[in-house]
């Protein structure tokens, strides 16, 4: 990996943002799976 490494505080912030994105994705997936499951059953 090239480029300067972020400071620990910024790295933590970036990780928190990434987790927020992941939680958003998982939440969307759960909503969609529930809907599809309703249709299939």
């Amino acid at each position: 990996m090239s480029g300067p490494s972020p400071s620990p505080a910024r790295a933590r912030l970036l990780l928190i943002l990434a987790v927020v994105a992941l939680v958003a994705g998982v939440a969307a997936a759960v909503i969609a799976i529930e809907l599809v499951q309703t249709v299939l059953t």
Partner: protein
Amino acid sequence: MSRGGRIVAAVAVVGAVLAAPSAASAHAYLIKTFPVASGVLNGPPSSVALTYDEAVEPRFAIISVTNTAARQETTGPVRRSAANPDTLVVPIRPHLPQGWYLVYWRAISVDGHPVQGAYTYAVGPDPGPAPQFRIPSIAGSATSPQLLITRWLMFLSVMIAIGLFAFRAVIARVLPRRVSGTNLRAVSVAFVAASIIGLVSIPVYLEFATAVDSLRSVFDVGALVPLFRVTAFGRGYVDMLICFALFCVAAWTTLYLDHSDREHRSVAEIIAVTGAVLAALAVLSIPGATGHAGQTSPRGLSLAADWLHLISGSLWLGGLVGLLVLWFTLPARGRVAGLSAVVPRFSNLALASVIVLLVTGVVATVDHMPALDALWDTSYGVAILVKIGILAAAVVVASGNLLRTKPRLIAARTDAKLGPPAAGLLRRLVGTETVLVAGAVFVAAVLSSLAPPPPAFALQNSALAQVGPGRVAQTVKHGGYVLQVLVTPNKAAAPDSFALRITRNGLPVRHANVTLTFNHLQMQMPQQEYQLTETRPGVYSRAAPALIMVGKWGLGFNITPPGGHPFTALIVDEAEG
């Protein structure tokens, strides 16, 4: 296999699969009525009750009961039966006089499409001959221009946003590293713009769709918003809005975290992009679950095909838009180098997307078409053919990019003078391809607004003859029997007379048991069945107000000859108004 060979093979697969028979089912079915269709009651009923195969929403349903003078006889709103949630009940004026009445109904299926039908009943004991009814004017279409345009804009913006995200985050990510002085800001801005339009267009479409379904003004927002989650269709699109908003959160975060100047992604970037991909996949699964795919057997296959169809379509369309954005925003000195870095990567993805799009499109077509001739005999089938035609044109243009532009741009890495003409050709071809694919999305919006042909449509293929409009005198042969069918005057909503003359070896076949069933081939209606009586030797007839709507009817003569095997002779009859 060469590219040409692959295309030929794909066309062969399309033909072979289309030729295969299939079963289709969708939309709410009327399975029971009170009063029964064409029945004569001894006294006036206090209400009309319609039972469907699913719980349809009474707030979106219309049941009209009119007399021969087209006077409305209902006295209150449609409500759900306390005894059976699948039954809708409407009160009617007490002490209706003797005579014939027309019940005309419209309901919204779980997939959001209106279904409608009609039947007649009589209040006796002496209602007189069945008259001709005027069909009340009730909006039954889900394809108003405003609704179509909002649906199109919704699909277009959501598909472009997701495709642009994939283009920005995966395909074009190499650009700043490979071509100095370039960046992906313009693609990111285009993605954010498309996603904002998507966030606005989903609720706007839902508003328009709810207004059409509930027969309210689109400006009656206060009344419409509470109805958003009343139907499965509305709930589905609210879920889609939530999922798309979550996708925007994940995708915007991903782009914020992305360092495209680094070859490898950081852990945070990988986590974020995983979330965005999950959300995008979730968004694209919802239109199928709330539309035809979710109502068509086998549902698992239909949903998977629809999902893959939307994913591949989004990658293709979004990528094309991304290429155009790059073309117009890259600095002139870096344009050819930039395009030669991105176009070959996109071409591989586009080829895979087109193949998946074709295969899943064929699967969906086979799923929805009860018979091959429904493709050209129904508006749903014609829309599919138009979509196939537009996509075929887009594939031809795409092959120009694949076979001409891509090799020239690659060659331009070593021979600079090849670059500018190749970039010019790319712009023209990608522009045309984008317009064509956007057109195909519009036809898809039309397609998903139309009701697929009812399963009864498949009856046409087993018909011994197609007759009408106008008076019918048709002779057909079946298993050694000669059958002469007479229908007079063969008009919808009129007291038609039906007769069947059966002979074998020139002699009338007497004492047979003959019943006649009626199925409307273009509209879902309960099947009607009448017993025919032998009025002359070998002639079985009956007067019945069975052709209650114009259109094509499947007339099934179920014949049991004395001492012979029972058989059915099916005639497709077109009745005029």
